[in-house]
């Protein structure tokens, strides 16, 4: 991979935020046909709701600032840490082959824990159980980098979560949260992302709230943002007390919202405003 300008992101951020109003037209917004029984007829990635400039930045591997994280984590993948003297690579070999498809199918049921785990949790389980080292904190650069790196190995593969068997009560719980109105503004995920996607809420152009691009590089923050931080942000904005990152509630919600985007290609690292 080529070397990049670190200062680039700042420049591009300024340009792209000005351009957020130049969003894709209805006509050119492409999606995939939803399976029978789905809430949408067409499932559409958040990519399609962003400006031409933001999309171009995502599409260019050399300029997409999210790839810096992929590069950083590619090194950490090989780094030995912890009392077992292991790296990720000691157990998994080349990520390009062993991690292919993994990120597309998260969250996944964990037989030992008897609950679903997402990619961040899975990475930390490997660190504590197999490497015998410290877990990374949620939102730390290390954890978000590695999450991005692993999910990138599924780039272009369709989101394919399992929602049956032991996952089904979690799916139902996630669905319940999705349709519950929270906060002083009394709005649900559904109020914005189901009923009003494709519309403006003042300067914000609303998408279906899909998760296929996460972690996503946010121009506003100039860093990669993990999914549960986005969930927190959406709840905070309606003046609700958000659930905690990696809580059972957000795991259930992650599973349910992944299902709403079933079949969408993984876009990690995506770029959003």
């Amino acid at each position, binding site marked *: 991979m080529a070397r990049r300008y670190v200062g680039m992101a700042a420049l591009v951020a300024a340009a792209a935020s000005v351009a957020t109003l130049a969003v894709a037209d209805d006509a050119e917004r492409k999606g995939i046909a939803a399976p029978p029984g789905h809430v949408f007829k067409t499932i559409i990635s958040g990519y399609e709701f962003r400006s031409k400039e933001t999309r171009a930045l995502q599409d260019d591997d050399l300029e997409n600032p999210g790839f810096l994280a992929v590069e950083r984590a590619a090194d950490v993948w090989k780094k030995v840490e912890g009392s077992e003297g292991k790296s990720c690579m000691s157990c998994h070999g080349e990520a390009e082959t062993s991690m292919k498809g993994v990120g597309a199918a998260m969250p996944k049921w964990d037989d030992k824990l008897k609950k679903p785990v997402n990619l961040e949790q899975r990475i930390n389980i490997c660190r504590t159980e197999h490497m015998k080292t410290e877990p990374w904190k949620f939102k730390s650069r290390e954890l978000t980098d590695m999450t991005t790196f692993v999910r990138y190995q599924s780039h272009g593969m369709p989101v394919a979560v399992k929602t*049956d*068997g*032991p996952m*089904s*009560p*979690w799916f*139902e*719980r996630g669905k*319940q949260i999705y349709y*519950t*109105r*929270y*906060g*002083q*503004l*009394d*709005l649900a995920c559904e*109020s*914005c992302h189901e*009923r*009003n996607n494709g*519309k*403006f*809420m*003042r*300067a914000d152009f609303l998408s279906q709230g899909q998760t296929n691009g996460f972690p996503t590089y946010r121009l506003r923050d100039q860093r990669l943002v993990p999914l549960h931080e986005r969930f927190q942000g959406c*709840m*905070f904005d309606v*003046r*609700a*007390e958000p*659930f905690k990152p990696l*809580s*059972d*509630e957000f795991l*259930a919600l992650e599973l349910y919202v992944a299902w709403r985007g079933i079949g969408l290609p993984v876009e990690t690292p995506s770029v959003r405003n």
Partner: protein
Amino acid sequence: MRRSLAAAFALCLSAGGGLAQETAREPTKEPIRLDVVNDSLPKSLSGVPGNAAAGKKVFLTRTLGNCLACHQVTSLKSEDFHGEFGPSLDGVADRYTEAQLRLIVADPKRVFTNTVMPAFFKNDGLSRVRPEFVGKSILTAVQVEDVIAFLKTLN
């Protein structure tokens, strides 16, 4: 196969201690009571008439009404970014009486079933409200009356 409802419910409870915790968070302040008469609120909430200029400010300010987040208004054309969730409010003073407008702003779910428009003068029956807003309505009685005065200029 979906598991039984009972199992799902058990999960709800274990997942974050949901119900009990949420009830414990309920505001201790007096809930606001609205004197609804025929789908409207005839009496001023503050006891005095509102001020249209102040109401325009409430309408535009993001931390107050932020009404423009969802509505378009032609007379506010100079402002960027009119939202599209709700209808244009042009001519709204001709469509509704002052008393009807008051209820629409104070508690729109009593007028429009399942609307996404927030209730601006309500302080209970809400879920997981952030601590700094618990027991408070989005707008004060005076601010609601000011917004009503502004809406009455839209004819």
